[in-house]
Structures are given as C-alpha cells and as structure tokens.
C-alpha cells in the first residue's frame, strides 16, 4: 500500500448536457460550486470540514492564483494547503497525488480535488475551442504549417502504428463502439445513442486516418474527488477507495528519434504495479485516457494487456464491455461521455472510483475490487503523450 493513511471518500460530477441558460454554461465558478456540492454530499461531509483544496489549470483563461480565488468563491475558510496541477489530461491524477502527499505528511485531514472546464460556447461557431497559445513550439513550428490540433497530431501516430504493426481502423473501431454502449448506460454522458462498426468506418474523415468517431465530444463539466485521512474516513458512512499504486512520466522516450508507438505509460504503469504489488491480471476494470482509440490501444499494450503492436487485434478480439472480460472506459469515456477541456482526466478518475464504490448502477462491473486509471497530458513535438499518469486503485474496508 502506497498511502496507508489516505482514503478516497467522495466523488462528484456535473451533467454534461447543456443547461437551458447559456449564460451559466461558461461559468467555471458554477461548475466548481456544483461539483463541490455533489462531492461533499457523496461523502456525507460538511463544507467546514475541508482544510485542503487543489484545482487544475483549465483551458479557459483564469486569473493568476486561481486556486485562492476559487477557495474564496466557494467559501472555504482557513484552508491549510491550496495547490494547482497543470499536467493537462494527467492533472486529475497529479492533483490526487498532491493531496495524498499532503494528508500523508499530516498537513491536512481532508483534501478536495477539483477540475472543471468550459470549452464549449453555444453562442459562438463550433470551431476553435480555446484561444491560440501565445508562445511555444505548436504556435511557432506547427500551426504555420497547418496542423489541426490533436486530431491531426494523433493521426501521425496512428499512421506509424498501422505501418509498423498492421493496425486497422476496423480493429480500433471496437473501442469507439463499446464506449458508446457504455455512454448509453450513463445518465451523465453526452451521447446516449449506440453506434456500430459500420457507422464508425463511414464517419466523416477529419485527418486521415482519424475520422469523426475517433474524436472526443467537447463538453463543459466539473468534477470533484475528496480525500481524507484514514482516521477521518473511518468516521464516514462510505466505502473507501485506496491508492494502491501510482506512477508518472513526463517527456517519455528518446527525444531525437522517438518511437511514437510506445508511451510513457510503460514507465508510469510499471511504477504503479510495483507499488501496488500486482500486475494486470489482478485488475477488474480499466479507465484508460481516451482522447483517441489509437491512444487507448497503445496504452493497453504499455500496461501489459498484450504485446507491443498487438493492440489492434487485442481490442477486436476481447469483450471490453462493463459485463465482459476486460471492462474498458465504463462511463463512455471522453469519446462518448464527453471531454470537458483540461478537466478530461477526471472522466477516467471519477469513473474508476465510482466502480470501486460499486455506485455505477446499470454499468456496474460486478464485484469490482481493483481498477487502473490513466491520464495523459498533451502531445509532445514528434512524440506522442507528453505527460502520463497511472493509478492502481483498490476498494478498501469499512472500519
């Protein structure tokens, strides 16, 4: 056990559907307030019990010292540990680890991890979710040549995986199809209509070989995860979830001639398994960062579910349903439940915890005891995932 004195005691999540009042839609503060309320409610904990708060850096522009601004807006007083995580799609896991460290060090007894973002503006045209970065290599060395965001950048990766290993769109389509099935069972998901493989293959081409159903659906949303000391957790009427293992990896691989078919999840996953003292065979459900099916397939390889390069045949030949052999992204994931901007990593984190609390209703993985959650932040120049995180979570015992 990595953090013996830390328990996850609450989760919260806003619905992804558009509210009736467009003015509410882009309010980060509204999303954070609603996510906070549902998180505290799931733990049965009072507002005043929060003494640590962490927030992600959103894609929507926020003022400097946003965590201080948010603590004030939400009305938490005398907070003893306030921090920010800024590792893109990894930030949910990064924030959880910061909170666990603060509890483990005895600095706080509770720590509220918050993530919200609002990339969608219904009053504006659909293109262009966030302002263009004012600096950096994407602006200077990619945008001028006509890169089209992550869609086109992961198309490069899929091209190489297909060329090296024969991975086909037919194979990867199984990921999109099963996740859409899961979304239809999730009342908080954006999509509720199933798709089949034919629809996946016929979808609008975006950046060959990436098509429309390889891309996430952007949504606005907020999430919370509440940590408490084991002692504090024992006073609550909840099924605690424990952090059995974790690992992170930034800027994986040889920078000069990187192999873009392997991700930092190899490093982060090994660390997480070692800390947890288990391997992939001991995992009941998999919440794998899903900005694209090819990214899921590569991570399944890197997590040891199949050999490098076999991700295509593996996903085509395995029952990935919540009621199947290898339950994958049981909320629908970002592809079908929705990607809330830089809060995307919470899609995987919250569902991973929800399954172990056995609170996933119609899509509950029977007897879920141990789950993997991954996060991935950004696409590095000439590489794949810039920052990777892996968690092994375990259902704990009520004391």
């Amino acid at each position, binding site marked *: 056990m990595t953090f013996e004195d830390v328990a996850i005691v609450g989760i919260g999540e806003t619905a992804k559907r558009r509210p009736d009042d467009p003015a509410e839609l882009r309010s980060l503060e509204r999303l954070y307030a609603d996510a906070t309320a549902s998180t505290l409610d799931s733990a049965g904990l009072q507002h005043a019990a929060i003494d640590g708060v962490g927030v992600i850096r959103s894609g929507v522009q926020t003022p400097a010292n946003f965590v201080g601004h948010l603590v004030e807006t939400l009305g938490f007083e005398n907070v003893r540990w306030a921090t920010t995580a800024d590792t893109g799609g990894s930030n949910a896991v990064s924030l959880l680890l910061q909170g666990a460290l603060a509890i483990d060090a005895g600095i706080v007894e509770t720590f509220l991890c918050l993530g919200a973002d609002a990339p969608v503006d219904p009053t504006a*045209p659909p293109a262009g979710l966030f302002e263009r970065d004012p600096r950096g290599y994407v*602006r*200077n060395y990619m945008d001028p*040549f006509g890169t089209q965001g992550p869609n*086109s950048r992961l*198309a490069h990766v899929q091209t190489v995986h297909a060329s090296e290993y024969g991975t086909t769109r037919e194979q990867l389509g199984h990921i999109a199809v099963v996740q859409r099935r899961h979304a239809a069972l999730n009342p908080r998901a954006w999509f509720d209509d199933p798709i089949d493989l034919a629809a996946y293959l016929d979808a609008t081409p*975006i950046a060959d070989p990436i098509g429309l159903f390889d891309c996430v659906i952007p949504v606005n949303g907020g999430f919370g995860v509440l940590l408490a000391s084991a002692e504090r957790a024992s006073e609550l009427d909840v099924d605690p979830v424990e952090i059995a293992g974790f690992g992170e990896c930034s800027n994986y691989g040889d920078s000069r001639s990187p192999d873009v078919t392997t991700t930092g999840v190899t490093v982060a996953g090994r660390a997480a398994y070692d800390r947890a003292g288990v391997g992939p065979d001991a995992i009941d459900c998999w919440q794998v960062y899903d900005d694209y099916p090819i990214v899921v397939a590569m991570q399944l390889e890197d997590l040891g579910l199949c050999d490098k390069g076999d991700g295509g045949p593996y996903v085509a030949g395995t029952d990935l349903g919540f009621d199947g052999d290898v339950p994958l992204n049981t909320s629908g994931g970002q592809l079908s439940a929705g990607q809330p901007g830089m809060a995307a990593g919470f899609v995987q984190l919250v569902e991973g915890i929800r399954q172990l609390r056995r609170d996933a209703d119609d899509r509950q993985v029977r007897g879920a005891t141990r789950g993997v959650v991954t996060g991935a932040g950004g696409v590095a120049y000439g590489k794949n995932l810039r920052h990777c995180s892996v968690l092994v979570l375990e259902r704990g015992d009520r004391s």
Partner: protein
Amino acid sequence: MTDSRPLPSLAEASYAREFWDAANEGRLVVQRCEACTTTQYFPRPRCGACGGSVDWVEASGLGTVYSHAVIRRPVSNPAFRDEVPYVTAYVELEEGPRLFTRIVECEPETVERGLPVSVTFERVSESVVLPTFEPR
C-alpha cells in the same frame, strides 16, 4: 479564433531568429550543440541532450517522411480551409532531427512513410518563409 493564417511569433524567441532568417534566404538550418555535437530541431535556447550552448549548421535539405496525416477538415485552424486536403508530415532530416512540415507538389494519397523528400520554400508573408518538402 482568427481567420488569418497563423504565423510564428518571431519577436518572442530571439534564439530561434536564425532559423527564420535562413528560411527567408532559402536555406534550411538546424541547431548543433557546441559541447556534444547533437543536432536538434525545433530551436531551443540550449542543447536538449546535455544543456550545452548551441550553434547553427546548414542542413542538406534532404530527408524521408517519418509520419504523415492527410488533413480533410480544418477544425482547429480554419485559415487553411481553402487548402484541404493537404499533407502534414514529420520529415526525418539527413542530419537526424525530425521536422514538422507540409508535403507539397504531389497528390496527398501518394505520400507514404519513407518517401524521399527535399526542401522547398514557400513565402507566406513579407517576413516569413516556411520550409516545406516535395518528393524527390
């Protein structure tokens, strides 16, 4: 979101100036470390391999396609809407580094990994010339 073509921010990174100045004169240059001789691209203030100081060296302009994508929908940069379909690629230069660019002067469907290419230059504004690549 602007509809004008995105251009590099030339004023911001003085250490990268030589790259754009060279392109303006029809030359392709990459950085080389004065300590460990590693070549690198994109331009950085120091060597990514050892942290040493870097200088500029002329590249041959020859390379091969490492990876590519055929852009069909200009979802993030609508300024390119009249240019689709087009091919973006990482070209592995003879000198080693991979450079993100555009493959021009061919049908998009004919581009494949390993395709031998050579540099060509496209002026996109008064001050900016982009090194793009064509089959050789």
